[in-house]
Every structure is written in C-alpha cells, then in structure tokens.
C-alpha cells in the first residue's frame, strides 16, 4: 500500500516538473530538456529528493531552475525538497524528448539533428531552416545567444536562426 502511495506521489511530481520551464528557452520544460535525472519521495522524512544535471557547466539558468522547482513543488504542498546536482553521466542532447524537439522547431530554433556527439563539425550538418524548411542553410557562428546554440542563416529566406547544438 505504502509503495503505491510513494509511486503516485513521484508520478505527480514528474507531472509538476513538466510545468517548470527553461528560463532561456521557455517553450521547453526541464523534462523536455532531460535535466531531471531522478525523483524520489522519502515517506518517513516526508522529503522529495531530486537529482538534476546541468546542460553546460557555466549555465546561469541552473540556479533559477532550482528556485522554480522549489516554488512549483511548494505550491503542490511539497515543502521539503532536496535538489542534488550531478555531473556524471554528463548531460547530452540525446536526452531531449521528441516533443521537446518539435516545440523547439515551432519556436524558431532548429533542434539537434545528430545523436552522435562527435559530429561537432557543424558546417557538415544539414540543418533545416525552422522558418521556411529549406535545407539550403549555412553556419554563421559555432556559438550563439546561449552556450547551447549555434548561429545559422537560411540562404533561401535569408532569415538568421539558432540551432541547438548536439552535446
């Protein structure tokens, strides 16, 4: 019986975390990004144990994400929350959900195309323009407005756009 209650609680926490967004890419939830690695409810101490992993080591959004998680869980009645940050295994864009990739695309950011991190030769990748869909695009800069993005331009519609790098 108790085990079921814990499972239900954990399930509801995963659902709550779906509503916590990345402050820099607000269409993506932290679940879409794959940065929540584990959720555990300790019934005895009535504590929620969360494990999250940063996308990039210097990502300034991590502190804010932590605060937003606490806020969202407090609203649902979970006041005792321990958030542990782990570095290993290192976050990879392979953990991004399919729906996350579709949301990125709709938001105007080309989602990561390859699953192999070794494909860092960005100019060799075929990236479709999120505005017009053309694959006639070129790399402008390997680094974009945030650490996780590169800057591309569409040679058909001429729009510049961000590409979420494989990592």
């Amino acid at each position, binding site marked *: 019986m108790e085990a079921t209650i814990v499972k239900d609680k954990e399930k509801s926490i995963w659902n709550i975390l779906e509503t916590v967004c990345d402050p820099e890419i607000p269409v993506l939830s932290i679940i879409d990004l794959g940065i929540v690695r584990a959720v555990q409810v300790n019934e005895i101490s009535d504590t929620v144990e969360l494990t999250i992993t*940063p996308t990039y*080591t210097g990502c300034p959004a991590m502190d804010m994400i932590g605060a937003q998680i606490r806020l969202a869980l407090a609203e649902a009645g979970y006041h005792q929350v321990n958030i542990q940050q782990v570095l290993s295994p*290192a*976050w990879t864009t392979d953990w991004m959900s399919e729906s996350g990739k579709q949301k990125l695309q709709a938001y105007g950011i080309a989602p990561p195309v390859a699953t192999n991190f070794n494909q860092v*030769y960005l100019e060799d990748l075929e990236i479709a323009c999120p505005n017009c869909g053309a694959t006639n695009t070129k790399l402008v*800069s390997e*680094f974009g407005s945030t650490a996780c993005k590169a800057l591309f331009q569409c040679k058909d519609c001429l729009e510049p756009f961000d590409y979420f790098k494989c990592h």
Partner: protein
Amino acid sequence: MLQQSIKSFIQQDQQIQYLLHLADNALILSHRNSQWCGHGPILEQDIALTNIALDQLGQARNLYQYAALLITEKTGISTTEDQLAYLRDVGEFKNCLLAELPNGDWGQTVLRNFLMGSYQFFLYQELQQLASGQLKAIADKSIKEITYHVRWSADWVVRLGDGTTESHARMVQALELLWSYTGEMLEPCDYEQGLIGTQSSYIKAAWEAKIAAVLAEGNLVHPTNDWMQSGGKKGLHTEHLGYLLAEMQFLQRAYPGLEW
C-alpha cells in the same frame, strides 16, 4: 585573506593543490577571455568568446566547489568556492603562466586559447581514464565543452595564419611571444605526479601532434626554440596576474562576504 589554517592545510595537501591548479587555469583563462566582452572584432565572435569564457568559468566553479568540499571535510572549517577564488593572493594561485598573459590582439587571444585548450582537451581525456569520483565527473562534463572550444580556436589559427599578409605576420608574432610559455603545461610538477605522472608523456605527444598539424595547416612555421618559462604552477607569476586579481577580486575584498 584566506584563513591561515586553511592556507597551511592547502600547502600540505597535494590533492587540493592539484584541484586548485586545474581550477585556477580555468578561472584565469576565463577571466582573460571575458575581458573581450563588448570588444570582439564582430558581434558573432564576441559572443563566441564570451560563451567560451562562461564554459571555463563553469568548469572552474565545479573544481573550486569540489576543492572547497574536501577542505571542509578534512579540516572541519567551512570553506566555499568564493573564498578560494577571491581570497587567495598571487603567490597562492597555481595557474600556468600562459593563462595570465595579457590578451594582446585577437590573433594572440585565439592562439592562446588554442594552445591551452588543446592541452586541456588531452589532459581531461586522461583524467576520464585515471581519475575517479567527482574529478572524473568534472572531466566527463568539461571535455564536451572543450571539444567545441578547440575546434573554434584551431579554425581561427588556420584562418589568420593562412590569411592576409597582415594576419599572417601577427600570428607569427603571437606564436613567438607565447611559445616559451607552453612548456610549463606539459611538465608535471610534484602535485600532478600522483595522478598523471606516468601518463604525462601521452598528453605531451598528443598535444605536440595536434599543434604541429594545425600550425602546418595555418601556414605557420613550427617554433624551434625549446627554452621554456615556468613557475606559475608553484605560485611564481608574471607581473600581470596581480593586476588581474586586483580587478577580479575587488568586490569580495572591499565588501567581504557580499552576495549577488
């Protein structure tokens, strides 16, 4: 100033010295790169270098946090990453001299990043194999970022080296200036011996091969002088580091314990 008891503890603990050496390399290089913010040759490259500086700052933070945790556990005196970054003086910093040299022009900046980034790449590759626990985790995480950094800086070395007469001449000048500061990275000192001592020959060989290949592609003649500067790892720095720290540490020195 760092508490005397913590200072004495660091002087006796090689593991902490090693972590601080890695952290200082990342922090000082990050700070130098961040000085380009708003001054890059074009907006995209200004953003690229500040992105790289941010990654390096993140790596430094992970290492300082880990060192602070170990110091706290071993001495029982609560220590933080900020104390390690902001309250140590020049002689306590263990970064390689290459990291602290002034930026110079864009060519000198990208060359320094290439020389040092390539070293960090092979070093972290080794640490993935040789280290365990949190240091291995930091290496696993950092190497993905460094891979992008080295690709970027190597591209620039080739572009400028093999570019116009002016850009080529400036890269030759930068290479002459920086070369004698590269040897220090590849010669392990006492606190490095324990972990990477036997593997340092691999790092050296891999670094040399990488540098030779990129210099050749950039139409730059490989330097032949082998007299090398050293001292940074032991706290003997150039006159430049003091000025850098004076600026970087000002806030914590003037308003101790201030939080953002």
